[in-house]
């Protein structure tokens, strides 16, 4: 038995060493964001300019981020939550107020996106990227080109649709089809939406929030409800992919940089935010990721830096939606207590045999 005790002791000591041997340097920034959302080149450039090393940890949904922070995780300096998540975090006092004197580059932001309703006065957040949620289809495969969400209910689409695996988004689409507000809390309207969604279910081949465009590219689906970045990825591989905002309306979302309360390296975080807002950094992001940029200075710079990329950015509805598109786009908002109601409906939709 002695041998085991000694061995266990060694192992525990090793564990302790591992635990204590963590990052002690104060020249560190702990970034916690979606994967494939912040270019490595940007991080390297930031380190080169400021000497601050960046740890880039990842989550794969807003809800995971929320759950982890709410359960007590700490140590992160910078996060990138979406609009409705920001609203929830502000209400629960989870964010640090930003010292705008340290982020002069804030002026580069398009003033369509400043002072948003989920963060009045830009007290806690700075826009990072934004995008839309709409209808994507392969124009060579679909029986007819859809212009309305209602078109998807057509039996011609049987078992050929891919939809985001997201209750709020999909129920939202159905609500819009019925002419209601996608953030309604009216029980009667929601019940009606549920029935309508059940009618759509036979047309849905799969739900997928990870990579819906894959189903379009490999021929499993012909059309789908997805977000712009996903449609852009499909478009890159197959120019027959079209992305539109149907007449009944679509969705819009904003991702923002924010600092969690009690972040250990607040100054580094502010320096990083300011750096990201610079035109050079903004262009790096646009080059790598096909979302929409809220940075006007960045887009201006892109015109001369890479004219071809600027053109394709402007041409694709995913990255540069028209005013008409935007006029029809509504964001998802937190619905408070009605959240459990939406969850119940989604459970019933999926639990239906």
């Amino acid at each position, binding site marked *: *038995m002695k041998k085991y005790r000694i061995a*266990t002791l060694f192992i525990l000591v090793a564990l302790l060493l591992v635990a204590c041997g963590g990052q002690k340097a104060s020249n560190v920034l702990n970034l916690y964001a979606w994967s494939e959302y912040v270019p490595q080149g940007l991080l390297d450039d930031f380190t080169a300019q400021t000497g601050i090393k960046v740890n880039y940890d990842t989550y794969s*949904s807003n*809800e*995971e981020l*929320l*759950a982890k922070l*709410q359960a007590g995780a700490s140590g992160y300096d910078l996060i990138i939550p979406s609009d409705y998540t920001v609203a*929830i975090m502000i*209400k*629960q006092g989870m964010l640090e107020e930003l010292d705008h004197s340290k982020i002069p580059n804030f002026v580069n932001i398009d003033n369509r996106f400043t002072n948003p309703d989920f963060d009045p006065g830009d007290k806690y957040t700075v826009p990072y990227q934004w995008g839309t949620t709409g209808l994507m289809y392969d124009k060579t495969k679909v029986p007819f080109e859809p212009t309305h969400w209602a078109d998807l209910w057509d039996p011609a689409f049987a078992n050929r649709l891919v939809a985001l*695996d997201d*209750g709020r988004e999909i129920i939202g689409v159905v609500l819009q089809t019925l002419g209601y507000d996608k953030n309604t809390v009216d029980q009667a309207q929601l019940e009606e939406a549920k029935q309508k969604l059940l009618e759509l*279910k036979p047309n*849905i*081949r*799969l*739900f*997928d929030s990870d990579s819906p465009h894959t189903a379009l590219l*490999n*021929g*499993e689906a012909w059309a789908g409800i997805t977000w712009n970045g996903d449609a852009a990825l499909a478009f890159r591989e197959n120019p027959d992919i079209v992305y539109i905002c149907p007449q009944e309306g679509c969705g819009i979302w904003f991702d923002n940089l924010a600092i969690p309360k009690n972040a250990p390296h607040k100054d580094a975080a502010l320096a990083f935010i300011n750096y990201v807002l610079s035109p050079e950094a903004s262009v790096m992001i646009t080059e790598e990721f096909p979302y929409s940029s809220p940075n006007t200075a960045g887009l201006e710079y892109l015109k001369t830096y890479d004219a071809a990329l600027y053109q394709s950015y402007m041409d694709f509805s995913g990255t540069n939606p028209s005013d008409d598109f935007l006029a029809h786009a509504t964001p998802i908002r*937190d619905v*408070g*207590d009605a*959240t*459990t109601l*939406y*969850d119940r409906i*989604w*459970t*019933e939709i*999926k*639990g239906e*045999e």
Partner: protein
Amino acid sequence: MKTARVPDKTVRRFSLTKTLQESPVAQGLFLMGPTNTYLIVFMVIPLILVTVLSFLSRGTYGEVVYKFNLENYIRLFDTLYARILGYSLLVGFLTTLFSLVIGYPMAYYIARAPARQRSLLLFLILLPFWTNFIIRIYAWIMILRSEGFLNSFLQWAGIIHEPLNILYTPTAVLIGMVYEFLPFMVLPLYTSLEKIENAQLEAAADLGAPPWKAFLRVTLPLSVPGMIAGTILVFIPAMGMFVVPDLMGGAKTMLIGNVIRNQFLTARDWPFGAAASMLLMLLTMVFTLYYTRKAGFGEELLL
């Protein structure tokens, strides 16, 4: 085995090693000690948190409201959740059944293989699982989809003319689930089968039993502990699993695992999620304890 002890004339001091050597109870406690300590710290305390949580409520913004109530359990009392639970049980059951049927002959083969080869063969079963879970499933999607490898091959060979619709159906889910859980069934089965001495089988043969009878009367019963261990290791996680049904079944069904995950991550109704977890845990715990006791795990202690 106790030898007669002559009482010491000197003062009896308590000696740990002596107590350990002589008292089976002490030995048992010593061996069980580390596990119990570890699990009490890392499992029980979190478990208490979850239990308490299940009796609380969700606030407007998803925070926890500290008001003791039974709302969550009452909510669970609903045909919707009963149906979901039933479907999850079915998934678990089928996965276990197929894993057992497919895995048993394989475990048998490995157990009968020359001693040198056995570790290698076992290892070869596990090696693929050291790749990443997600890409393994993606590889299956590549195989099973309409324009995937299986369909292409079958059409090329002239066996079918229309692609088989396997992906995003329950069949695909079963294929994926069995794929992921096979090692968990094969390994325990192997450890049980490997123990069976050739001498016992030879004795049966000497007594005139044909091979199939020897198998049924000797091998099979002796491999029951392995089957039990395998069943526990497959059925319980399979019942709560939702990633494979989501990825290979198109996320068109709601299993109990989805419900629980949604409570914590989408609806942000942690108390309700905790209650659903308690229900699931209670069910599986009862199943496990009843099943293992009935089938004789730990029966040596009764001898």
